[in-house]
């Protein structure tokens, strides 16, 4: 899932303090799972914003809603038809949702209520960790399913570096323990009986499929609904 963390209340309030009617919009997918942007969090944030508005002497009306996903027209458009008198939106969906909403609206500002961080999984209840970096050219078959881009601080493909300390990455601190991704890879490949594969040199990565190549899109020609040209429509 895409993991995100709530922005500080003061920061969010600062975005909307001069508006009059603000919609707090949540998302039912990833941010619900990591408990930053679902229905519950919408209620909590809206109430916190109301209290702060009161304390600061601002008259702001806060509306609340949560939709299934903020990244698809199917779920977003019905909501947007209903908000003619809203003058700002705080979206606590991930950054994708904020982008998408803002793109659909144009003349109503959309502010982010969370900091979107990474693509990750639930390690245990209350802990989520990064697992995929979206590099666009998956190499998980080389490393027993442990991503050297997402889980090595140096995105090393022929790891580990000399900084591994008792299975932990050199950047680890008490507050932020980080496992050495490559120590995990070596362990996994050992368990799979494929350690000799790690002796093959992996060449430099083509990062052009990653963020480095510029904003990405995926096109499926077979799924695109062809629009009628004006001539075809007349015929």
């Amino acid at each position, binding site marked *: 899932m895409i993991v995100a963390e709530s922005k500080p209340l003061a920061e969010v309030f600062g975005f909307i303090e001069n508006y009059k009617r603000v919609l707090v919009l949540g998302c039912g997918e990833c941010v619900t799972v990591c408990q930053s942007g679902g229905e519950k969090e919408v209620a909590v944030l809206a109430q916190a914003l109301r209290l702060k508005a009161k304390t600061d002497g601002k008259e702001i009306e806060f509306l609340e809603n949560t939709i299934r996903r903020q990244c698809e027209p199917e779920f977003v458009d019905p909501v947007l038809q209903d908000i003619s008198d809203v003058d700002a939106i705080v979206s606590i969906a991930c950054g994708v949702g904020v982008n998408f909403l803002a793109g659909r609206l144009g003349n109503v500002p959309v502010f982010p209520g969370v900091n979107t961080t990474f693509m990750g999984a639930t390690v245990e209840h209350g802990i989520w960790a990064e697992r995929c970096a979206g590099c666009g050219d998956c190499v998980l078959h080389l490393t027993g399913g442990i991503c050297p881009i997402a889980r090595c601080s*140096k995105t*090393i493909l022929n790891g580990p570096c000399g900084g591994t300390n008792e299975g932990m990455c*050199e950047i680890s601190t008490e507050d932020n323990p980080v496992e050495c991704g490559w120590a995990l890879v070596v362990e996994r490949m050992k368990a799979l009986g494929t350690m000799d594969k*790690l002796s093959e040199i992996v060449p*430099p990565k083509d990062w052009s499929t990653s963020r480095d190549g510029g904003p990405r899109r995926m096109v499926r020609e077979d799924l695109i609904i062809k629009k009628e040209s004006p001539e075809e429509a007349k015929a």
Partner: protein
Amino acid sequence: MKSGSNLEKVLDAGHFALTAELGPPNSASDEEVKHKMELLRGSADAFNITDCQTAVVRQSSISAAIMLKQGGMEPVMQMTTRDRNRIAIQADILGAAAFGIKNCLCIAGDHQSFSAAGRLNGHPGAKNVYDVDSIQLCAILKKMRDEGLQEGGDPIEEPPKLFIGAAWTPMGDPVDFRVARLAKKVAAGAQFIQTQGIYDVNQFAEVMKKVRNLGLHEKTAILAGVIVPKNAGMLRYMNASVAGVSVPAEMIKRFPRVKKDAPKEEKKAARLESQEIGKKISVELIEQVRDIEGVSGVHLQAIEWEKAVPGIVEAAGLLPRPQV
């Protein structure tokens, strides 16, 4: 003979090689490097210049390497992949080669979060690069030199002459993969290796057995790292915090202990005594690693204490350096 560098010639001739380290300053002046050059002149076959070690901004390794070259000393340029992508790396290699710099140590480099250690602000928020890793970097240098091609395949008008080096942490975790990783560095083109600091010689000797079994010591020149200890605290710190470095307890016990509230004179005496013990230990380490089959030399690091190097080298019987 690939580069004709002094270090390569010394190793090729079968001598026990010696490299030492010079740390560049946080300064826009050339004075400090020139001063350190004179402290070190003649005491090794080539001199490593660190490349923003621990991600702390210092005068670049290449600029100091040029100063050394122009001052009649042979540099070992260090290149991390943390701060440069493959384009900048290759440009820097060609530029360095144009100044006659031949030895290059290929390393990934400490993560930039290290730069904010202690009292430093550093640049922990910098974007890191790591476009390629140290092994891929060795292969890039090899391709430039032997095939006259850039990494992307375009031909280079005049290929650089390079003596390619890599670092190795023999006792790093996970320890059962470290020799295999050394083999990868050698396969990628590493002609000389400088290891992380060794204090537990027995442990290192055990690892070298595995290295010899694979014949790696014949394919690359392994220079054992000796980091000169200034005091017990430094050893304790390295033992606890530096990956792959383990210090035998007996070694730490050799240093004098001084109470926190001891008088200034006592503390000063202990400090000087510690320095002498540290130098003595370095000489012993050099002699011990020299006895291990497959070790082709020593890489001596006296961090911010370059003036200690000539004395240690002399006491270890390694002066004068061979003229090749």
